[in-house]
């Protein structure tokens, strides 16, 4: 059975190939992994601030939250817009459009291949973190680990669909990456990357709950850190965003492909 051209064999071959492809960029990916240390910078800022009590977490809780935020970010980072924009502008998208496989699967595979490549670097950074902060060490239960993995994967799916939605605008504007900036600022503040959502005033928290951003970092990070969180509501909202975004992406894609002029090809 094929889903938009995809079957198990394609998944296996595509993932293997993309992993091999990403290994060619391992040094670059190591630097990207290192560049994702913003949560640790924020941790040190919060630890040195009098406002830390407002977060409703003790020192160890805060350490675990930001380490979890770092890990969730490592495995949910999406750069779809940039890759797609380049492919659309240079004509590299054309051969993908002429194969019986939806081109979006190739970008999914690239991201998953990159996540696999990041794994050892993220593990090393985590080990260094525990060496520096031994009190923060914890091993999540198997159940929490699986739930955190699922929440992270769903966070990745939401981020991927959001970027795909904007990337599809390349069919009209050719420079959709500029629009990504519109997403980045609210993502930065409302996702929980700079501070747990509890740090924000109640009306901002309420507002944020109506956006997908807290479900990209804050929710999966809290699940991984085994902090109190409403699992049922969190997963239901993640699923709702996926169900909402997926048809929008497919519709916009279908409309966009009609306008594709195969530039550069």
């Amino acid at each position, binding site marked *: 059975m094929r889903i938009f*051209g995809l*079957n198990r*064999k*394609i998944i*296996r*071959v*595509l993932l293997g*190939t993309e992993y*091999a*492809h990403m290994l*060619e*960029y391992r040094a670059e990916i190591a630097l990207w992994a290192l560049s994702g240390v913003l949560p640790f910078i924020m941790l040190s800022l919060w630890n040195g601030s009098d406002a830390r009590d407002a977060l409703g977490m003790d020192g160890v809780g805060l350490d675990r939250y930001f380490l979890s935020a770092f890990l969730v970010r490592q495995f949910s980072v999406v750069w779809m817009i940039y890759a797609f924009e380049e492919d659309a502008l240079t*004509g*590299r998208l*054309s*051969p993908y*459009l*002429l*194969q*019986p*496989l939806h081109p979006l699967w190739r970008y999914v595979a690239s991201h998953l291949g990159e996540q696999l490549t990041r794994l050892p670097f993220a593990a090393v950074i985590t080990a260094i973190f525990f060496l520096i902060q031994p009190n923060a060490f914890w091993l999540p239960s198997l159940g929490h680990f699986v739930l955190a993995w699922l929440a992270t994967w769903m966070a990745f799916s939401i981020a991927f669909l959001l970027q795909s939605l904007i990337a599809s605008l390349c069919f009209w504007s050719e420079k959709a990456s500029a629009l990504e900036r519109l997403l980045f600022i609210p993502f930065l503040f409302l996702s929980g990357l700079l501070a747990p959502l509890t740090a924000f005033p109640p009306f901002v928290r309420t507002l944020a709950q109506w956006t997908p951003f807290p479900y990209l970092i804050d929710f999966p990070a809290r699940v991984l850190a085994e902090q109190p969180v409403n699992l049922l509501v969190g997963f239901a909202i993640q699923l709702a965003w996926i169900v909402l975004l997926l048809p929008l992406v497919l519709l916009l894609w279908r409309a966009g492909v*009609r306008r*594709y*002029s*195969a530039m*550069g*090809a």
Partner: protein
Amino acid sequence: MAPQRSLHPQVAHGSVVIEVEGLSKIYRVADKQPGLSGTLKHFMRRRHRDVHAVRDISFSIAPGEMVGFLGANGAGKTTTLKMLCGLIHPSAGQVVVAGHQPQKRHPDFLRRITLVMGQKQQLLWDLPPMDSLRVNAAVYGISDRDAKRRISELSDLLELGEELTRPVRKLSLGQRMKAELLAALLHQPDVLFLDEPTLGLDVNAQARVRQFLADYNQRTGATMLLTSHYMADITALCPRVLLIHQGHLFHDGPLDRLASRLAPERHVRLELDAPVGAEAFAGLGRLDSCCDCEVNLRVQPDELTAVVAQLLERFEVRDLEVNDPPIDQLIGDLFRQGSV
């Protein structure tokens, strides 16, 4: 060059595999004047204009045909190819390729066609071609055994060996093009759209690619529509040519008939025993050159017999040749002139 085997019997038994009727494509492009004022005006009030890339062209191609698609840069060749393979939607007209409307990009249609672009690549740059081939085999649902056999067959034809396990970035342009062809043909398409497949290759590599395409056509009966700036590709492979000029289809037929349409005059080359002045050839056609004992004339075909008789009568002729002007020169002239 009768096809020995057809990949899709329904195509072989049909009389037409590509049918194009009144096909047009209009691009809307931004129109910006140079300089700061042009930039400001463009920012405040964006203006567009319509570019008619293809204008109302019609033709059909039978299964197994190899057709050359000629035209200057910007004439509309690539736009037409993109519409035929379903990459872009036509602005008007009808296209049917292998029984499908290409722009719908139905998976069954995509399995039957391929597009090879000489200046673009589908192979993953940092990995050996074999990795891209494995992906293509999976995407097209080719079993591992069949994929292995087809790769072996095609790599033999293309004279590819260890290049398949070397990163694409380490391959020469010719090796890369051959690997691209292999990737494009792995699913055994029966309609091939080839856009400048020998672009940038040296003479030997061009000849090998040409030979491969001829062999592939003979072995599989595949239909090919080929654009190339190298006339050698067209003359070697394509008994029939389409010439597109400023979006219009100017010629559809055999290559030699195109030559007579473009230049109805015949070339007459004379080698004389002794030099003769140019004025002696007045009234004997159009004098191209008269240097020492060698004279080149252009003569209307209906006057050829009479002119040759007069030349032999008036001068001491050591040698005489009558030729059609070289087709590449004619088309080159046409492209340079910019008008038909």
